[in-house]
């Protein structure tokens, strides 16, 4: 009798432990947590950062076996502009640097050096560096990933005022999923990248005294 009671008690303890573990795992997965940028200077945002010029994308990859052409660059920049506009900022693309430089040279420059190549009529500029691309298709699994760093530079102050970096991925597994994902995987990855990064960009309405 006592053995039966003890078995039942053990069962109920195990059930409770499992319930607690499962509930905490579910709760962790469901909560959306505010993303933190690598760097942000809120004072610079208060002084005003518009218009933000979105500079040509800098492809700093060592391995360029996966293509990243002008169409891709335009798509990504247009997503960024839309996202910045959604956050309340005026942003526009700028199609050239003030003088011709290689991606390697751009990549080696610090903020002060970069400012010499940025349009003087803008208050700030966003530089997007693509650090890695991956395109994989294996029988029933397809995926595309892009890794990029986003930096906003205050042109007059010659310093970085916001920075974040992330990997955006899109793909699918299984016959139907993989086939569908194969078609829109690049756009999906660019969207995932922008969706990941921009929650850390301060909304204009949240900046006190933003002009």
């Amino acid at each position, binding site marked *: 009798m006592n053995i039966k009671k003890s*078995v039942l008690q*053990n*069962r109920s303890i*195990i*059930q409770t432990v*499992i319930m607690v*573990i499962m509930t905490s795992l579910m709760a*962790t997965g469901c*909560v*959306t*947590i*505010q*993303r*933190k*940028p*690598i*760097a942000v200077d809120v004072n610079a945002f208060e002084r005003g950062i518009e218009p933000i010029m979105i500079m040509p994308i800098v492809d*700093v*990859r060592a*391995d360029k*076996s*996966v293509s990243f052409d002008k169409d891709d660059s335009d798509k990504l920049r247009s997503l960024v502009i839309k996202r910045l506009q959604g956050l309340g900022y005026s942003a526009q693309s700028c199609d050239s640097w003030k003088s011709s430089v290689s991606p390697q040279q751009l990549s*080696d420059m*610090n903020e002060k050096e970069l400012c010499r190549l940025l349009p003087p009529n803008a208050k700030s500029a966003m530089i997007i*560096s693509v*650090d*890695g*691309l*991956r395109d*994989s298709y*294996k029988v029933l*699994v*397809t*995926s595309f*990933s*892009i*890794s990029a*760093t986003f930096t906003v530079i205050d042109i007059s102050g010659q310093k970085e005022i916001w*920075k*974040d*970096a*992330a*990997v*955006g*991925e*899109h*793909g*699918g*597994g299984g016959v139907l*999923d*993989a086939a569908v*994902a194969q078609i829109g995987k690049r756009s*999906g990855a660019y*969207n*995932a990248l922008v*969706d*990941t990064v921009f*929650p*850390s960009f301060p909304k204009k309405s949240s900046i006190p005294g933003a002009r």
Partner: protein
Amino acid sequence: MKQSPLTLSSALLCALLLLVIGCSHPPRREKFVPSRFSVDVHHPERLSVSVTSSPNAFPYPTAKPRGDEVFTPDSKFAEIYREAIVDAIRSCQLYAIADDHHAADVILDVTIRRMSDSSQSTGVTQGTSGAPSAAALIVTEWSLKRKITGEVICHKDITTSNAHDAPDYILGGMITAQRNAIEGMAATNIRQGIEWIARRTTSR
């Protein structure tokens, strides 16, 4: 005696959870040291290296990263990183390595500013990736200074991603794939940082 199906399934479930959560492998120092690289410049000054981790290195500070020993750039991780930089600089002879901080002519401060994998990047806010991989990135800030004057010789963020060669997860190999991804990425980041210093100090 009859085995309770509930007890058996509970034990299996617990074992599975432990396998996924608890068995993360710490990164290996020797894998952080970049191989097959050289620089054209060699400075006679003695260098001291320090590595710290920014509080924002993990983009979601309140969330528990998956495989936390691998992904949290804590003081142990920073120390492994520092030792790997010292080993790499010693092997390419860019600078002589000072025995201690006081004996150094030049100081290299490296800060780990961001470290994340794609599942952390996209999985916390949405799940867009149907085919997860071990794609990840690391951003480190490198600042080279003269010890006596404090003059900054060069200063730069180095971003490294392994997106181009990240392995796909295979059943049971998730944590190993993540560890390998972090190790490969760290080695590339260190190589990029040292090559950048070499380029910037060539004309001095």
